């Protein structure tokens, strides 16, 4: 009569014979999807945040920064000669190269660069002799603000539209959302930004068509300036999120546990927000996470439309003058943002699903 098994990961295997129509859940965390071997071990380990950092983020950070360094190393064509001009003596060039550390071997340069980058020291621009780290720190808030406003837009609009479309499946709202989303996905986000300027600044005059006011100077002005570029940037992702959420929520609402919740007497609202939406949110949140690199690129373009003194202009100028530390610095900063957002998204997803937290 007793059930002696002690609950825990090991007892996750269920007896056989569940209805074949509902197979996906039967696996649990160690279900049929995972293969044997390294990857499976890895995934089990990455259930713990510390290990996830060590095995996921750190190698990725190392590899991606190595790609950046290797690429810029290969492409850089004697910047000292370029800087000193045609009349420079070979000695002067050698001296400058030495002061930049360019006379060292590739790996020595790489390790030294990486060591400095980890501490936030991104070096000095070859041509303007200013600190790259400081310049980025000044400009980054602009792109971060645009990206964050875009993400908020994507989440708010995407979740609202996707949820309504899924709940009123087949209704007018559903059709409109589906249509608008499929149109938005094929439109370049910077074109949306341009049309937003045409509509809201040039035609209606509601919002400024460009310029920037730092948040700490005047939050209200800041919001006015960040709204157009940020929201128009986020619309495409909002469309992706809406489509994703609509799909996963429609399937979630068809799941048996929704019937189970109804039989337990829970209200439709509670079933939707307390159960189905929570379970369906993961793919949509992951979509937002995957969109961060694209959004950063979009922010760079939005800068040039709205005349914002951000990272993109800095990168464009640096690239045009072959200013290697500037290019390296911008890439490292954006990679850092992408990796941080990955960690945040992974943590969110783990919270949504206790299985990974407890495994």
């Amino acid at each position: 009569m007793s059930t002696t098994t002690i609950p825990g990961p090991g007892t996750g295997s269920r007896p056989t014979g569940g209805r074949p129509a509902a197979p996906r859940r039967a696996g649990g965390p160690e279900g049929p999807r995972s293969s044997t071997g390294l990857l499976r071990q890895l995934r089990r380990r990455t259930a713990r945040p510390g290990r996830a950092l060590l095995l996921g983020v750190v190698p990725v950070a190392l590899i991606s920064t190595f790609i950046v360094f290797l690429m810029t190393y290969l492409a850089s064509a004697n910047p000292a000669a370029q800087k000193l001009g045609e009349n420079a003596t070979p000695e002067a060039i050698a001296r400058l190269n030495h002061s930049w550390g360019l006379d060292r071997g590739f790996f020595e340069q790489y390790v030294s660069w990486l060591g400095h980058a980890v501490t936030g020291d991104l070096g000095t621009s070859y041509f303007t002799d200013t600190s790259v780290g400081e310049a980025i720190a000044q400009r980054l808030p602009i792109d971060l603000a645009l990206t964050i406003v875009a993400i908020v837009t994507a989440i708010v609009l995407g979740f609202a539209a996707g949820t309504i479309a899924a709940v009123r499946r087949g209704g007018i709202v559903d059709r409109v959302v589906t249509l608008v989303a499929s149109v938005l996905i094929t439109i370049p986000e910077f074109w949306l930004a341009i049309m937003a300027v045409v509509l809201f600044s040039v035609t209606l005059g509601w919002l400024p068509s460009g310029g920037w006011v730092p948040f700490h100077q005047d939050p209200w002005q800041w919001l006015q300036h960040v709204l157009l570029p940020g929201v128009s940037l986020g619309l495409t992702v909002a469309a992706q999120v809406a489509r994703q959420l609509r799909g996963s929520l429609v399937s979630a609402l068809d799941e048996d546990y929704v019937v189970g919740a109804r039989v337990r007497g829970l209200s439709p609202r509670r079933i939707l927000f307390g159960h189905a939406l929570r379970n369906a949110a993961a793919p949509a949140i992951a979509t937002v996470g995957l969109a961060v690199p694209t959004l950063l690129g979009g922010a760079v373009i939005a800068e040039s439309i709205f005349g914002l003194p951000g990272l993109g202009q800095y990168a464009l100028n640096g690239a045009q003058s072959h200013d290697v530390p500037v290019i390296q610095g911008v890439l490292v900063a954006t990679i850092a943002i992408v990796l941080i957002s990955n960690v945040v998204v992974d943590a969110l997803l783990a919270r949504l699903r206790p299985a990974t937290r407890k495994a």
Partner: protein
Amino acid sequence: MDTFRRTFATTYVRVAGVVLLLVLIVAVFGGALAPDDPLGQGDAIFAHAGTSGHLLGTDYVGRDVLSRLLSGAGASVLSAAAMVGVGLLLGAIPGVLSAFAGRWAEFGLLRFTDAMMALPPIVFAIAIAGLFTNGQVGAIIAIGVLLAPRFFRIARAETLGFAHQQYVEAATLLGASRTWIVRRHIWRKVLPTIAVTTATSAGYAVLAAASLGFLGLGVQAPDPTWGGMLAANVEHLAEDSWAPIWPGLFIALTAWSLNALADGLRDGLAAESGLVRGAVDDPDALLAGVVPAADDPHARDLAADGAASGGPDGTGDRDHAADPAPGGDGRVPVGAGAHGRPGAGREGVRDVG
């Protein structure tokens, strides 16, 4: 040809096919189709559409907008095609081969593709285009390289799925060499899925090419590109507010036709896998033990692809217990259609073992 027929089963996809065909014709013969000299400046500046003999009006120095759009199509569309080509080459072939690689190589390759995916494409392209002497080639390579991980993951996942199927294992037992297996069996199975990824990636590449054109990377003024025309329009928004409509329309139509084609392909292949492959798969599944255990990257690849195209499941690898079927908008990626069919077998396997 069945695949072709199924792909173009709906009017939606047929329209997309026609649009894409038109875009390709314009891209190849654009200059010859242009009614006017795309660089020839005229007296009528900011002419409205349909006035003074200019169907879509003129720009800030009186150049014919339609002619510039048509002759700019080549640079815009063909550079996108080149990006996809680079991605395909660098991604798909290593992806198929990686399925046969050892564990550590596998681990390294996967981290490497993760690292590539952490690079923001536009920023990366700015860097490369600036550093390399030829900006356009640099930009194409940069975007192409960053498209490669998608192809890599899809190709690898599909290969992993098929490589463990019985007939391939049988071929191995019979002493077939790896190259022979890859040539004989796997390419034929993997190619359809790669075709879907190619179409979605091409849609993305069109947008990326337009972005780079907008930033002035690649083709230099006064030669027209769609993105470059938009950049010029932005400088004259006050004089001609609605000019950005036309380049935007061309970009969006191209991207839409490619996405719609990808959807059609996906649906067509899903239908096919239900009809044809199903017959092959099920006995395999029932025999247990050798059923493809598509691991972590598999789901994730489809996810990565899907999320990028705004489509299916974004969290395959997160393995969300409550995840409803992959397929955000009801479209099941082919991989899932082939060996992720509910109840097809992995459950059975568990029940037995």
